[in-house]
């Protein structure tokens, strides 16, 4: 699944490690979500979106699912 996490993270000058720590996951998971290898669960997607002050749809691209 495509996401805007990398773009949002870069805009805020955040490292993957810092984002992972903020949302309670590991750096490897953030990397996998960013490159589209892993699809985050609903709670994690919510935490990430909430961290950036956006909705889940604004961070994650659901067009491929539809």
């Amino acid at each position, binding site marked *: 699944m495509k996401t805007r996490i990398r773009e949002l993270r870069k805009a805020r000058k955040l490292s993957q490690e810092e984002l992972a720590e903020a949302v309670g996951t*590991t750096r490897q*998971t953030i990397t996998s979500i960013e490159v589209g290898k*892993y699809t985050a669960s609903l709670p994690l997607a919510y935490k990430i979106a909430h961290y950036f002050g956006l909705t889940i749809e604004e961070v994650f691209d659901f067009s491929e699912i539809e």
Partner: protein
Amino acid sequence: MEKYKKSLKLQNVLLILGILCLAAVQVLSFCGVLTPAVQDEHWAGFWAGLVAGAAFGITILFVIGLVINLRALRNEAALKKLYAKEHDERTAQICYYAQSWAYRICTLGLLVAIVIAGYFSPTVSLTCLAIVFIQSVTGALFKLYWHKRL
């Protein structure tokens, strides 16, 4: 996080108990009180060494676990990191897939082994059969349990 801290403390108690038990086994084995039930003397020595090595290896693993837990309990940042690592959903999914595949492959391997070993050793063949049986019953029981929970 308090709940997690409590679970780490309980884990530490269990680890310490495990370390003490394993240390006792090693001391008793070293003193010759505990000896493997093997008739052949040369084989008994080899086997005693193997068991002692395994006990020592497990003790080291327990000690490492204890050190990691103690460090996390003393340092909030390390605690958060350990919590994230242990509760990471991707890691959980990787473990699920890995174990699920390992279970299937081992079961298949054991089924083949039952037939092959049947021609050479009935004991080995029956042991494999017993393992497959126990594995299947345990798997079925857990499936029932999770069907009710999810």
